[in-house]
C-alpha cells in the first residue's frame, strides 16, 4: 500500500471529479456535498473506465400515493457516475449500482490533510 498526493482539494468543484493514473493504477476522486470519495477507475461490468464518464443525478420513477406515475424525475439527493463504455451508473457515495447493489466499484481510501488530497494505492 502506498499513499499518494494527487493535488489540492481546492481544485475540485462540488459536485466534481478528477481521475488520476499513478504507476498504472487509475483512481477517480469525487467531491460531493463537501465529502471526498474515491473509486478504482475500473467498471465491474467489463472493466471500462467507469470514473471517466458523466456525473448525473439518479433518475427515479416518480410514483404518487395512489400508485400512478408522474414519469421519471432526477433525484435531488443522489448523484451517479456513469461508465462511458455502456452506461452503468454507480452512486458516488456508495459506489453501488442503483438497481443491483451487489454490483459496485472498488473503494479506494482517500483523505484530506492540510488542503491536499491523498489516495491509498494497492502495493
Amino acid at each position: 500500500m502506498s499513499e499518494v498526493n494527487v493535488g489540492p482539494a481546492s481544485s475540485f468543484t462540488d459536485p466534481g471529479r478528477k481521475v488520476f493514473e499513478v504507476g498504472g493504477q487509475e483512481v477517480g476522486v469525487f467531491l460531493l456535498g463537501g465529502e471526498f470519495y474515491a473509486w478504482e477507475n475500473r467498471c465491474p461490468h467489463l472493466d471500462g473506465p467507469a470514473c471517466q464518464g458523466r456525473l448525473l443525478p439518479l433518475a427515479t420513477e416518480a410514483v404518487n400515493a395512489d400508485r400512478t406515475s408522474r414519469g421519471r424525475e432526477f433525484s435531488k439527493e443522489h448523484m451517479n457516475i456513469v461508465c462511458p463504455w455502456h452506461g452503468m451508473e454507480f452512486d458516488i457515495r456508495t459506489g453501488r449500482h442503483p438497481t443491483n447493489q451487489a454490483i459496485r466499484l472498488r473503494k479506494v481510501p482517500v483523505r484530506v490533510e492540510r488542503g491536499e488530497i491523498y489516495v491509498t494505492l494497492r502495493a
Partner: protein
Amino acid sequence: MPDELKSSLVGEVRELQEITAATDTRDYLFAAARQAQRQYDDYELIVDVDAHTQEGRFWPEILEFMENDVLKHTALNQLAGGIRTPLINMQPGMSFQSLSGRVPHQSGPRESVSNPDKPGAAFVEIAKRSIDFMGVDYQVIFPTSMLHLGMNPMDDVEVYLARAYCRWMVEVVLPQEPRLTSLIYLPLNNVDQCERMVREFGNHPQIVGYTICAVRHKPVHHNQYMRLYSMIEESGKPLVFHAGPHWDDPSFTQLNRFISMHALSFVHYNLIHMTNWIINALPERFPKLKTVWVESGVAWIPFLMQRLDHEVLLRQSEAPGLKRMPSEYMQDMYYSSQPLERYDLKLLEATFDKMKASTQLLFSSDWPHWDFDPPSSITTLPFLDDQAKRNILGLNAAKLFNLPIKRTRPRAADAIAARAADRVS
C-alpha cells in the same frame, strides 16, 4: 501533447480527463488494449464480424456515389439544410441510443484525424484505432442508419443508397485498409437490383458476404428471392441477417421506453425471419447456403429451438419440407455474439451448449454502438476452454468468411506504448 487527450502530467501523477464523443478512440479503448495484452495477445486470429460506420459523419462522401440525379439533388439540398443523413427514414427526435449522452461513443466520432479531407481516410483511421486497441485482425463493417432502410416507403431510395454505400465501401474505404471487410447490402424491396449487386460487387475480395438488414416486412421465404439465394449459395459467401431496432412496428408502439423496444426489437426481427426460413424449409432447399444471425445476443436461440421443435412435432403437415428438427438446422447456422447476455452465466453456458457455440458462434463487437462488447466478453467466460475461445474469437469466422489465419494486428504492448509516446510528445 495532442489537445484532444486533455491529460496532463502532475509529477508521477497523470490526470485523465472525462471521456466525450471527441475523445480519441485509442483513449476510449485503452482498457480494451490492456485486456488484449493480458488475455488474448497470443491468439492466432481475432475477427470482429459486426462493427459499424456512423454514416452521419461520412454521408456527404457516400452521397457522391448516388447514381440517381433527382435523388442526389434532393439529398444535397437536405444536407445543405442541416439534415445529417438525408433520405434516411429515421426520426432524429427518437434517437436514444447514447442514453442521453451517457455513452458518448454512440454520438461520435468527433475525434480529430490526420487527413480529414481525403475521402474515406477519416473512417479508415478511426476504424484502425478501434481494431488496434481491441486487438482485432479483421473487422466486418455494417452500416448504422441504413439498418432501417428496408422500411423506407420510397423503394428506389433503398436501391440507390444501397448502391452508393456499396460503391463508397468498395471504391473508397476498402482499398485503404486490407484488415477491413464488408458485405453487400441487399435492397430486398427490389430483387432484380439485389441480383445486379451480387453480380457487380460479389467477387470483390474484401466483400465477404451479403446482408439482409432484417428490419423489414418482406417475408424472406417469398418465391421471388429463390434465384437470388441460388446465386448467393453458388458464390460460397454467407447470407447475413442483421437485426435492428424499430419503434414504429405496431406492436412496439405499446412500449413506452427505448429500453423496452430495444430489448425486444432486434430479437423480434431475427425470430420472424428465422421462423420463416425454417418452416418453409429453406435449409433443405439451399443446403450449401450458410446463414449468419447478427446482433440479437444469444438468449433467443434456445427459446426458438425449443419452441419450433415443439410445434413441428405436433403440426408436421404445416412444415412438411423439414427432414430434421428445427433445432438441428439452427445448430448448423452461425450467430454473432453481441450483445452477449452475461448476467446469468449458468444460463449462458446452457445456451452455448445448445447452439454448439464452440463451432457456430462468432465474436462481434458492434463498436462503436452503445452496447458494444470487447473481445474480453468472450475471454472472461469461465466455462469456455481455450480452444473454444480461440474458435469464437476468430477461427470460426476465418472458416466461414475464408479469411487467412495470419496475424495482422499489432502486439497489444506496442499499441499501448505507441499511444503512451503520443500522449507525452
